[in-house]
């Protein structure tokens, strides 16, 4: 084999050899943040969470009505109007409970029309002799034949005929007679300008209520998670650090708590302390769901306490309390943070469930769960009342899940190179 010729090599000059590559040293958290920023999905999650927090906490400042203001004239208004044309730029909308509204072409509410009570023709039944089936039918038809309502609009009257709601052969749902205008086809659809999310059965603005509900749900979730964190971290740290019999007893207690369906404990505590405002549900959620956190922290502490820096701290005479607080817990913060992010959506979930079965926050306060619950009774007529709270719950949970996934990837030391 011939020796490689010299010209196949490029000699490095002395200067170049000495240049070392300088790289800014990154702390654990800087590195994690750098990773997190690269993960698009979790950044979307983070931004969404911030937006929802702004939506819930600052949104209500910009709406004209508060979450509990009731406007009886504006009950059950949808976010979309199906409009019947009366004249140029004057449209009429009929709500599911036969309230008529005058709306302009852009979707601004102008007026709620008063209904004029018309006397239905009196139908007399003679019960002394039995009616033949045909006679019964005739009487029934007479009794239900009045399918019109009259509304007062300025000095004139508007007559609404809703026969089409029952008789599908007519091809229209409502027929509106206004002077010589007869409208029975939907002219156009318009967004509700005044109440973008519509209103509920008591005439409360749903946008404000969803904002407020999101705020309550988030407060419950955050505070419950912090309570969880405090109990779980303290419990787990003590158990893991002390070891031996203490650890054994503490972990058996955790096993016992863990062997009951947690939802049942929550319900029992809620029954026991009764519904006394927001804090009962926060404390209940916080005092039950710490078990997982305690286990996680204990595992981390068990692994960490054998390491040299703990030995060094012990040798230097650092007290046991300070070893836990200053040396062990900060090193376990990554997994704790991940588990916390995952805990928030499950707290939102649980709170929504509890509110849904009637054990959550009580009126006039509203959370997303109670909003969904109160929409249930009129679901078939006003589906939008369920849609917005449910959508908000879904967005919150989705955002936290994305962020949590990203955080786990960012903080997981197994994925770290070098």
């Amino acid at each position, binding site marked *: 084999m011939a020796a490689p010729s010299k010209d196949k090599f490029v000699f490095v000059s002395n200067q170049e050899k000495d240049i070392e590559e300088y790289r800014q040293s990154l702390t654990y958290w800087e590195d994690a943040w750098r990773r997190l920023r690269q993960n698009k999905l979790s950044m979307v999650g983070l931004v969404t969470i911030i937006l929802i927090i702004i939506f819930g906490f600052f949104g209500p400042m910009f709406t004209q009505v508060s979450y509990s203001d009731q406007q009886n004239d504006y009950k059950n208004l949808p976010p979309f109007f199906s409009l019947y044309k009366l004249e140029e730029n004057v449209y009429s909308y009929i709500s599911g409970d036969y309230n008529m509204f005058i709306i302009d072409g852009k979707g601004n509410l102008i007026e709620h029309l008063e209904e004029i009570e018309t006397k239905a023709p009196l139908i007399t039944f003679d019960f002394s002799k039995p009616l033949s089936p045909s006679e019964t039918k005739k009487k029934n038809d007479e009794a239900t034949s009045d399918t019109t309502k009259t509304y007062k609009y300025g000095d004139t009257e508007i007559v609404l005929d809703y026969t089409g709601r029952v008789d599908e052969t007519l091809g229209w749902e409502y027929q509106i007679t206004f002077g010589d205008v007869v409208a029975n086809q939907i002219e156009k659809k318009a967004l509700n300008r005044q109440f973008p999310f519509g209103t509920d059965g008591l005439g409360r603005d749903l946008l404000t209520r969803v904002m407020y509900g999101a705020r309550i749900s988030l407060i419950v979730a955050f505070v419950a998670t912090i309570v969880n964190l405090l109990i779980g971290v303290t419990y787990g740290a003590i158990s893991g650090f002390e070891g031996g019999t203490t650890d054994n007893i503490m*972990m058996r207690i955790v*096993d*016992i708590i863990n*062997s*009951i*369906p947690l*939802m*049942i404990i929550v*319900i*029992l505590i809620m*029954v*026991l302390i009764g519904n006394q405002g927001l804090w009962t549900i926060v404390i209940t959620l916080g005092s039950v769901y710490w078990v997982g956190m305690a286990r996680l922290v204990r595992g981390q502490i068990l692994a960490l306490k054998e390491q040299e820096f703990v030995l060094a701290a012990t040798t230097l005479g650092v007290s046991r309390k300070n070893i836990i607080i200053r040396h062990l817990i900060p090193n376990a913060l990554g997994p704790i943070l991940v588990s916390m992010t995952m805990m928030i959506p499950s707290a939102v*979930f649980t709170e*929504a*469930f509890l509110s*849904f*079965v*009637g*054990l959550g926050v009580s009126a006039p306060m509203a959370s997303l769960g109670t909003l*969904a619950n109160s*929409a*249930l009774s009129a*679901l*078939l007529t006003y*589906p939008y009342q*369920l849609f917005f709270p*449910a959508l908000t*719950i*879904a967005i919150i*949970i*989705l955002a936290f*899940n994305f962020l949590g996934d990203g955080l786990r990837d960012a903080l997981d030391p197994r994925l770290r190179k070098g």
Partner: protein
Amino acid sequence: MRNYFARRVVASILTILLISTITFFMMHSIPGGPFTRERPVPDAILASLNEKYHLDDPLFVQYLDYMKGLIKFDLGPSFSKVGVSVNQLIAEGFPTSAKIGGFAVLLIVSLGIPFGIISALRQNKPLDYITMIAATLGVTIPSFVVATLYIYFFAGKLRWVPTFGLHSWKAYIGPVLALCGYSLAFVTRLTRSSMLEVLRQDYIRTARANGIREFKVMAKHAIKNALIPVVTYVGPMIASILTGSFVVESIFALPGLGGYFVESITNRDYTTIMGVTAFYAAFYIIMVLLVDIAYAVIDPRIQFENGGN
């Protein structure tokens, strides 16, 4: 190992007794008795009611009586439903809950695990993305929303299915779907990530290097190991699905145990609350115990000598 299981069984029984004790004292510390009504019951009637249900005995005697009954699986009479015992309520309600819960569990296991495995084998391919998007949505949407939307579209608008009750096979679709949504999504995600983890292991590479057919590598080495964390989740999940269906049951108005439980809470029917809680807890604990036994069968690496931690 037998020693370990004997210890676990004893611990489980003790846990059930402890839970019953706690619920007993919790229920008895709530102000207002089961016969407190808006319109007060005349004193004489109240006294005779209290006597009939032994509520005039000292608390400790009541406790002993209750525990004695519990050991004989007698949960006592219901306070709000006259002439019905809690045992009867459970016997009446649990089959309904178990039926929809059982179907939900079957659906979860038979869809979640295969989809998770396929998704892992086709990582970053369209099928994987579709499955994962569906699974993420499933984890996100609460079951009461699924249930109400289902009622709105299929029962209300399209009139394909009844809105309540369980009188035909069609009526099962909604409750089962609503019940399995979250867990189905979770099992799919769990199976996928666990499968991906296993596929990276050295023994899979060794098996492939030894020339074992790919199908056998998957079936015998990969899937079997990937299912271990899934089993851990599925056991308690079965228990919580069979017992935790009260929201779905109340939306679909099913005569299940969950419905009775919610009703007993509003009625302050203490014996029913205590009995159903004890029943739920016992069921849950037994399921967890079964999972641990299943563990020993699937994973011979697990050692039971050191307390099973």
